[in-house]
């Protein structure tokens, strides 16, 4: 139901290119084919390329997102994009905000400040139009020879069994066929491939409609998120105002279930609505608009033989809480390293199936969070509405009630608690970070110029070992264990924390080292001398110990690689 094309943004046009695959008499085989060049599909291609895995990306269009759609990109997403090498332009272009204001009627009832914890490379989130986000990903993807990006190649048929996926692709030069070991399907919330395979994504539809309008205005308004429940300019409903790049402002108007979507998306209906909200003297231009009904749904399994569903095709959420694109990219990150390990024959095939285990958990969490926010905005019956309104009425005077006001929570990544890939704690550690958690960033210093812990993690397994101020005897033991680890497990990088301070140069052979100059790693990980954390290639913790032994670390790596999985 999109309309008016953007005024501040000109969609790039990517040209169709004829592939030699189209001239082959037999179907050409590829290890990985990705359908859809949106945030999820491009993330998959980028992450695989970083692992040295070649992929073909097919998109039925020749440009990025038409209109903005997703606008909130979370810290974890930016950290992942930084690993891909495309976070810098996103941060440059994106808008960072910290202050949120909540109104009940026209009264400001409270403000909240999302000032993030200090000493992280990435902000808590940025606001950026989806088309910019995708454009920067495409630019990055074009730098990789491993990525064969084909615009205007539309997949029309998919067949799969346990060994192979086979597809038919339609282009201006006619049809052609290809086969692959893994087909990653990122063809969006209404996934035609999902439908063609007779698979379902099920969940709930929220009986409400929302008008999403992006407007351009030169505004003196500060960069804040403002949320109104029942304002006089839009009585009985809620409204959200958010700033994006290029003086584009996102406005979400709740319309109610009875609203007529076609009527509501007409400029003659939209423009007065916005004017009434912004005030009669404010000049603005409508950039893009759409009327949505939100739904939260997910597939029962994201894996169908050799077809792997990712992004909105696998799971869809309502936008409050920014769990859509963010959840999609986090899901992709979970899949790609496993796929790379399996394709390189460095892990059993079952490893890749744990994508479904871990990301079902992630998707359920995302569905839960965005459903709760949507339910708060659209109470399901009279009593729910009374509770909602009284929470708002109490919130102005009483801080306790503010904790219940839910206009979308900060998007946070899933902790894979209970994952079969985790080695659970046997030693006493704080649980804020734990096996299954994504790594927490910290400012560090290192001889090779790295300034952030996350720049030292990812892509490979990393054992982070603190060697500070150990006595000679324990140093000797540590050295033995590190030597053994490096000899027995080539796939693990050793990252020494504070080795320099103890002057143990011998330890450094083949190891990387960083200095925890601000004691942030110590605080955030409770990492003490002799302690070790093992990180997976997706930067999630898979094991940790107070006393470092090579055997424990190698055992945990093997578990994280799927060697201990029960045969299904």
């Amino acid at each position, binding site marked *: 139901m999109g309309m008016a094309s953007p005024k501040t943004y000109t969609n790039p046009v990517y040209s169709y290119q004829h592939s030699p695959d189209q001239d082959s008499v037999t179907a050409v085989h590829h290890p990985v084919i990705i359908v859809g060049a949106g945030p999820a599909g491009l993330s998959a291609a980028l992450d695989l390329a970083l692992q040295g895995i070649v992929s073909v990306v097919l998109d039925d269009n020749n440009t990025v997102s038409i209109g903005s759609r997703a606008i909130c990109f979370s810290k974890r997403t930016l950290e992942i994009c930084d690993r891909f090498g495309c976070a810098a332009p996103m941060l440059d272009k994106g808008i960072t905000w910290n202050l949120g204001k909540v109104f009940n009627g026209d009264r400001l009832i409270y403000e909240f400040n999302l000032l993030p914890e200090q000493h992280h490379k990435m902000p808590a989130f940025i606001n950026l139009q989806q088309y910019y986000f995708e454009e920067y990903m495409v630019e990055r993807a074009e730098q990789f020879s491993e990525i064969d990006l084909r615009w205007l190649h539309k997949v029309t048929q998919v067949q799969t069994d346990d060994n192979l996926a086979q597809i038919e692709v339609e282009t201006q030069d006619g049809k052609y066929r290809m086969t692959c070991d893994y087909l990653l399907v990122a063809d969006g919330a209404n996934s035609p491939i999902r439908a063609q395979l007779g698979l379902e994504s099920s969940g709930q539809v929220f009986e409400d409609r929302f008008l999403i309008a992006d407007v351009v205005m030169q505004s003196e308004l500060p960069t804040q998120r403002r949320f109104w429940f029942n304002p006089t300019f839009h009585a009985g409903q809620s409204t959200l105002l958010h700033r994006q790049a290029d003086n584009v402002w996102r406005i979400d108007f709740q319309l109610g279930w009875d609203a007529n979507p076609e009527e509501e998306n007409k400029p003659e209906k939209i423009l007065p609505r916005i004017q009434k909200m912004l005030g009669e003297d404010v000049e603005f231009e409508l950039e893009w608009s759409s009327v949505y009904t939100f739904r939260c749904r997910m597939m029962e399994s994201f894996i169908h033989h050799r077809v792997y569903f990712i992004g909105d095709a696998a799971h869809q959420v309502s936008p409050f809480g920014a769990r859509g694109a963010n959840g999609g990219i986090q899901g992709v990150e979970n899949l790609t390293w496993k796929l790379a390990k399996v394709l390189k024959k460095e892990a059993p095939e079952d490893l890749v199936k744990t994508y479904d285990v871990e990301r079902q958990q992630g998707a359920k969490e995302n569905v839960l969070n965005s459903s709760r926010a949507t339910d708060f905005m659209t109470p399901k019956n009279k*009593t729910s509405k*009374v*509770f909602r*309104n*009284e*929470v708002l*009425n*109490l919130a102005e005077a*009483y801080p*306790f*009630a503010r904790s*219940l006001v839910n206009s979308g929570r900060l998007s946070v990544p899933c902790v894979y608690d209970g994952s079969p890939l985790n080695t659970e704690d046997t030693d006493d550690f704080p649980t804020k970070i734990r096996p299954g958690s994504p790594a927490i960033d910290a400012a560090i210093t290192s001889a090779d110029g790295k300034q952030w812990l996350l720049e030292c993690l990812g892509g490979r397994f990393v054992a982070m070992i603190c060697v500070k101020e150990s006595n000679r005897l324990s140093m000797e033991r540590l050295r033995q264990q590190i030597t053994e680890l490096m000899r027995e497990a080539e796939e693990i990088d050793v990252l020494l924390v504070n080795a320099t301070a103890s002057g143990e140069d011998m330890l450094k052979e083949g190891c990387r080292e960083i200095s925890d100059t601000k004691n942030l790693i110590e605080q955030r990980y409770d990492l003490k001398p002799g302690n070790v954390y093992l990180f997976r290639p997706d930067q999630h913790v898979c094991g940790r110990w107070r006393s470092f032994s090579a055997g424990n670390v190698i055992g945990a790596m093997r578990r994280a690689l799927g060697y201990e999985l029960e045969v299904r």
Partner: protein
Amino acid sequence: MGNLNLKPNFSDPDSFYAALTELHRDLDPDQSERINARIILLLANHIGDQDVLLEAMRIATESPE
């Protein structure tokens, strides 16, 4: 399972009951519903413990009509 106190705990049960009913005496059902919602929210926050709150909800739902 929480540990919701189901033994008598009011400092002055008759006065509490009188105050509660007095509160609603001149209110219409809509006003009463709003006031009750506020009371529930205030007390729920005071209790805080999710297990205790869930146990109260369970008992309230399962009790005979």
